[in-house]
């Protein structure tokens, strides 16, 4: 994996909600391919950092954001940058599986239809994305069923398929397995592992074991600060910061 060519560069990123400084001066480069885990205890700003990448933080009217996020060298944090275009390029899977109130098929087709994507007919795209999410075999005869009838594990893979259908370059995953049972969680994780050769996957987790299992690169956050970041192996075996060391050894967190 080539770490020399980052897809996302964060420069002096600060986010605050009212009095609370959720992110304090974050600077980091995110590799173009592979799984980058954002690790840290609850409330350390992991999700805020993640939602900064697709500017979903802006939905909170109290949020104040400053600094730059460069996607392929272009500052997407600039108010002039088209946020719709950004969210097409940076897809997201939420913590709780959230099917849209429509059929399985329409869930996956929602994004492409909305953005008027062409070059592939919708049915073919839906099939391809459901396959990529490991859901096609289960769903091929249930495409017209309401998506809320699916099990939560299936719903989360449907979220993945729905995000993929918009053809993003980056996938943001906000603890996508934390609401699932272990078997479903493994299934979702396996699908993401299969996608990491083609996508930049940013994966928020507070589970150390999961981060060890899946990540190629690790960001460790604590109290709104990016404490340390680096390739996964080094981060787990030779952390330089004492806080990282304590977290990795299970003393804090």
């Amino acid at each position, binding site marked *: 994996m080539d770490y020399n060519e980052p897809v996302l560069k964060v420069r002096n990123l600060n986010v605050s909600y009212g009095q609370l400084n959720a992110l304090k001066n974050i600077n980091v480069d995110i590799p173009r391919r592979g799984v980058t885990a954002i690790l840290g205890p609850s409330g350390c700003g992991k999700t805020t950092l993640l939602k900064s990448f697709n500017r979903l933080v802006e939905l909170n009217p109290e949020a104040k954001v400053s600094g730059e996020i460069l996607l392929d060298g272009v500052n997407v944090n600039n108010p002039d940058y088209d946020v719709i275009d950004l*969210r097409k390029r940076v897809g997201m899977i939420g913590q709780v599986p959230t099917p849209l109130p429509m059929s399985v098929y329409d869930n996956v087709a929602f994004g492409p239809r909305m953005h008027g994507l062409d070059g592939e007919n919708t049915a073919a795209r839906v099939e391809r994305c459901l396959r990529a999410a490991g859901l096609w075999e289960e769903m091929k005869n249930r495409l017209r069923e309401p998506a809320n009838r699916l099990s939560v594990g299936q719903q989360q893979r449907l979220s993945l398929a729905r995000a993929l259908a918009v053809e993003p370059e980056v996938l943001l995953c906000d603890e996508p397995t934390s609401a699932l049972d272990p078997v479903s969680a493994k299934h979702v994780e396996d699908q993401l592992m299969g996608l990491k050769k083609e996508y930049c996957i940013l994966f928020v987790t507070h589970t150390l074991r999961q981060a060890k299992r899946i990540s190629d690169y690790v960001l460790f956050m604590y109290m709104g600060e990016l404490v340390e970041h680096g390739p996964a192996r080094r981060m787990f075996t030779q952390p330089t910061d004492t806080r990282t060391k304590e977290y990795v050894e299970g003393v804090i967190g």
Partner: protein
Amino acid sequence: MKPSAVEESLFRGLMILSTALVVGSLLAVFASVAFKGLPALSVEMITQTPKGGYYIGKEGGILNAIVGSLYLAIGATALSLLLGLPVALFLTEVCGDTRTASYYRRVLDVLCGVPSIVYGAFVFTIMIVLRARASLLYGIVAVTLFEFPLMTRAIDEVLKKVPQRLRETTYALGATRWEVATRVVTRQALPGILSAFLLCFGRAIGDAAAVLLTVGYTDNIPTSLSDQAATLPLAVFFQLATPMPEVQQRAYASGIILLVIVITLSLASRWGSKKLTRYINR
């Protein structure tokens, strides 16, 4: 008995008592209307318009009022949905949890509390200025004005219950606010919107005061918006005001018809909601 058990049974008793009171008075209304009205209820009542002498106890029915009521309620409720849905979407999707939104909500709440006769009188004033005569159109306008705040607040409450993560998910797919509001939030809220619609429909069809000054009264079935129209509550009112017992009985029979329409609607709304909940998240 332990004090906690005494407390438990005391409140249980109070709850049963208040439920019995509410259900009991409702049943009492049904019973008295049915008891007084059933002898006068006939097929002619719902298939004929009043013939000459109907109001002194001769031949005819109140089809004119049934049709007039339906026209009025459908027109006004449809209009207030057309006005109310965008306003409710504005409150939840654009204003969010801001001061502005709570200010608008308070204004709407005050409007909800204004008696319907005031809306009737307001429209009547406009009619005087315009030198217009009472007609179905002005009746619909008056009822729309009085339904609009109810409809808006009812839909607003439904939209507020749409989970925030559903909005986030849709925004994260690159949707604009318009797409979030129209394609996802409204869709998720559809069963609730249907309930709000039928709640307001019931209020519209049962209201007499807003139309008393604005819609006029006629024995004919209205054929255009500029015709006068009769409504069921007005029919009840006028028949009850006569001194003849047989006409008064017909007032109760008209009341039964009104009740049946409202009950049918509320059952239909339950059935419709169930159909629409197929796709939504809970």
